[in-house]
């Protein structure tokens, strides 16, 4: 049985946790929850480390766990917390109002998406995963990823239009 390499685990956490947290935030819409999700996923990773390290990429495993845990967490509260709800947990005095508005529109747009479509869009366009890798991460078919991504982008566009923002979703290739 492979040994649990604690040093490698710590190195991985230090190197990957930030990206995982950002992905989790886009999927769940709340920084605090994203932090919890990532820690939960990383704990699972530690338990599974000997097996995962020997069989597949730990980052892919961690990302898959984060996203799936985030989706599971979404079941607890059928709707994500609005980014406009409550008081921001960290002051951000350096952001122009325009950027804050744009962020709010982006997060509101993501919030409107069904969980799977949201995860597809985030993995495809934030994590730059291929359709195949996204399908593997979510445990769905590539066809599902394409359809969900397309649906997600369509809904995002609608959200932007409602917000009066002339934003083009030109990133990435076709879903």
């Amino acid at each position: 049985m492979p040994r649990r390499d604690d040093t490698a685990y710590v190195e991985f956490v230090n190197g990957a946790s930030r990206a995982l947290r950002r992905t989790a935030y886009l999927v769940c819409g709340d920084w605090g929850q994203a932090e919890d999700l990532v820690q939960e996923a990383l704990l699972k990773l530690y338990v599974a480390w000997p097996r995962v390290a020997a069989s597949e990429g730990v980052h892919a495993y961690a990302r898959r766990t984060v996203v799936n845990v985030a989706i599971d967490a979404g079941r607890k509260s059928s709707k994500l917390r609005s980014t406009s709800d409550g008081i921001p947990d960290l002051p951000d005095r350096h952001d122009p109002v325009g950027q804050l508005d744009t962020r709010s529109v982006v997060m509101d747009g993501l919030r409107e998406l069904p969980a799977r479509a949201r995860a597809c869009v985030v993995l495809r366009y934030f994590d730059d995963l291929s359709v195949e890798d996204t399908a593997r991460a979510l445990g769905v078919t590539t066809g599902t990823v394409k359809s969900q991504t397309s649906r997600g982008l369509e809904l995002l566009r609608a959200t932007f239009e409602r917000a009066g923002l002339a934003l083009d979703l030109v990133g990435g290739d076709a879903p």
Partner: protein
Amino acid sequence: MSPDIRELFDAAADDSRRPPIDAEALLARGRRKVRIRTAGATLGTGVLAAAAVVAVTQFPSVVAEGPVQPAGTPFSVATAETTPTAPSTQPPTLPPTPSATTRPPQSAAQTSGTELVRKLSYAEAARRCTLRMRAEYGAAGTPVPTVIGPGESQREGMYVTDLLRIKMPDGTEAHCSVPGSASPSYTQKPEVAPGDARAECGRLTWTNLTSWTVAEQRDTDRGLVAILLSNDRRAMLYCDIDGPGASREKTTAFPGASVYVLHGPQSSGRAGGSPSGVLGAAPDSTPVHWLGAVKDGRQIWGGGGLASKGAVRYVLFAGTRKVAESKVFYGIYAIRVWLPPAAGEPSLLRGYDAAGTVVESYQPF
């Protein structure tokens, strides 16, 4: 030039002012988690936190919204050695008086007992289901717009009238919305003839469930939630599956589902089963009970519907050792069970009536 979506996401997820995750602290928690999993002895704070998460996820549809009735009184019990193999044996001795404490046991010295943490009456659960159904899927009778192909189950959309409609290979349509009487799995081939509806969606224990009303049915990405109400509104079936890959887009049984069947005095008897525990309802409307599906560390979480006829208390055994005892609750509820030190995983649950006769006995996990 308008920013592309990658730039938008990048800006929205700016975490430059957030502190990094403490890898060493995580490592310590991970080590503790592994120790607990390996030894099954020390109850650490990490497990408590995980158990709290489990508690919330266990009953997402029926307890996660709105006010709930206050938690019940913890019902602490003394542990005792018993012999659970003979059905007619006398039940373990109850403590003289149930504990009157109102807070769950949290100290190392108090590690056994049960507590009712959430409870909804059937009527309240049905009301919430209906409200959510209307909010999410529209009024009753919303047509199913999707055309399904041979061999396919219904795609996308969850609607009031949606009963996991499937089309059989011969072109006929059937409905699948029931848990298996045995333990179907994704990898296990159905033990039915080709073309049988069960080959498509699992074992149809309740074929007449197609006439039931879907109060709620959701594709939850990694699982399905379905709540069905009988026509007389006196019986409810709650199915919740967390299995990855479960989807409305393909044939889905309910292996490992959490199932509740609630029967009122006027409902006709139906019975079913779940890998998590026997569910039963006799023709005389003997209610069903289910307890236990999720466990984490030394806390056991369970919940269910109505109790077996005559049942007044339930007792969990680990091997021959009595590890916890619970009063009988009616409605949809979640209970939390603390296992005493060094107790193994519960392997048997028994329900007793007031006379001490075993009225129900099954493996809870």
